[in-house]
């Protein structure tokens, strides 16, 4: 068994290791959280209470921090980490590079994220800053900027929604341009990563809000989150089945790749138990069969969200590792 486990993580054609899987995961969480925050704000338009809504606060924090975390992981994983600035400076040297376009996307996404956070949490940010520095000019500057940005609130939110979705699909595109690996070179991958990113973002936001900001099942936006989760998870399942069916009836290399991935390697266990059972079937079963009283308990909500997160992390690891096992 040790042999199989060792082989699962060390094989000749493996290039990208688990840090990249974590990077893919956190980017998905960021895009999903941002989408959730924008959706909640859209359906609960009370301006004043939005900045105090625990879900929106959690989502904003996760959206901003997870993408920064992802970039830090990426930089550390480079074989020349101190040269990371070259990716920023030379990002337009190769317009066809998905990774280069991703770097551009990160910058624009972060700018818009911070702009949106400033408009929504203007007063709260000011309060926090004033605890450390009490400078009238600084306060005035922040207020003026926030008000200026608030005038473009609608375009900023629409752009941010588009950018979040782009971030969600970007992780899929990053892998799907790899012609060398049949399991990764699939057109459905970006959509699959978007769906799993959205579900991981929602789950992470829910957990974060309950633990850190004392949210509960009656918090505004909580029921919306749950009503969004179910169709997204079902979509994820459908997309996975489409991937498997498509490859099973595809080219020889695709047939071998999917066979090795879901039937012959250690990663087959990770897929069926981690991705399908823990990540999709358990949460769905809990949604459909749990009693109402149970569903309103904090531990139940956190538990169900955790299962989804484990499922999404398993999916990232599975796709990354099993995907690199077979060459085209």
């Amino acid at each position: 068994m040790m042999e199989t486990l060792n082989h699962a993580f060390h094989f000749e054609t493996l290039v990208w290791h688990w840090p990249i899987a974590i990077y893919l995961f956190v980017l998905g969480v960021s895009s999903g959280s941002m989408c959730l925050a924008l959706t909640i704000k859209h359906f609960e338009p009370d301006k004043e209470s939005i900045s105090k809504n625990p879900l929106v606060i959690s989502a904003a924090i996760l959206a901003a921090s997870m993408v920064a975390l992802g970039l830090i992981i990426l930089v550390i994983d480079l074989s020349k980490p101190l040269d990371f600035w070259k990716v920023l400076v030379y990002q337009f040297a190769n317009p066809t590079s998905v990774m280069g376009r991703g770097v551009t996307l990160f910058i624009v996404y972060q700018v818009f994220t911070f702009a949106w956070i400033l408009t929504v949490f203007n007063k709260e940010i000011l309060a926090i800053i004033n605890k450390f520095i009490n400078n009238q000019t600084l306060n005035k500057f922040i207020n003026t900027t926030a008000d200026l940005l608030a005038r473009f609130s609608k375009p900023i939110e629409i752009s941010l929604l588009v950018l979040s979705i782009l971030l969600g699909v970007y992780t899929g595109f990053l892998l799907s341009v790899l012609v060398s690996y049949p399991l990764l070179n699939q057109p459905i991958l970006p959509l699959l990563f978007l769906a799993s990113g959205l579900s991981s973002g929602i789950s992470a936001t829910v957990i974060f809000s309950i633990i850190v900001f004392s949210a509960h099942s009656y918090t505004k936006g909580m029921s919306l989150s749950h009503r969004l989760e179910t169709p997204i998870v079902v979509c994820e399942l459908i997309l996975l089945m489409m991937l498997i069916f498509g490859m099973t009836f595809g080219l020889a290399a695709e047939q071998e790749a999917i066979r090795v991935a879901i039937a012959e390697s250690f990663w087959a266990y990770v897929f069926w138990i981690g991705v399908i059972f823990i990540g999709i079937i358990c949460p769905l079963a809990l949604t459909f069969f749990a009693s109402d009283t149970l569903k309103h308990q904090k531990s139940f909500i956190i538990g169900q969200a955790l299962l989804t997160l484990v499922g999404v992390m398993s999916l990232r690891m599975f796709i990354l590792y099993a995907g690199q096992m077979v060459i085209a």
Partner: protein
Amino acid sequence: MKSLFKAFGYIAILLSSVFVSTLSFADTQTAPVTETETLFTQELDQATLLDQATMAVLVKENTRCIRCHQKERLLKQIKPITSVGKHKSEANLDNCTACHGNKGDHPIDNQVIISHVPTDYMTIETQNEQCMDCHKADELAEKEWTHDVHEKDVNCSSCHSLHQEIDPIINAEKSFRVKLCVDCHRDPQAKKKLIMKEGN
């Protein structure tokens, strides 16, 4: 029902934490696998040991080989034989006959001895078969694949020098081996010389 779901949830979380913990294997190093080398696996069993009489003849023959060949044979420019390296056999008194065949009427009849150089009276394949009696083709191929393609056309002695303490080609550096291949294969004339030697 409630407790059932609670149990279900706990089991699911337990399973997932087990899986997450297997991620710790992501950085384990594979231990290098050492291969033990055995080329000559034929065990000397009692049945193959020759009887006393035959042994006596062989010992006598081998003594006579050494008596002449320990000095330089000026007529044919054969250098003195001072060592048989790994093939030394005290039982057969340095084992000339095992590789060169029985003495017979040599040197009067010069065609009975296996000389391990290209000749026109004994094919290279026949000469190499003397070596292959002990060194099996499968084992040779496993140790060094080039044995397969040279066994029938090239004398074993072209690459192996047995009349010295250490045969330089055993466990030689890659660059040495590459040079050996190149030297022979690059020059078509050299290759011909090795396969078709005039006379003895």
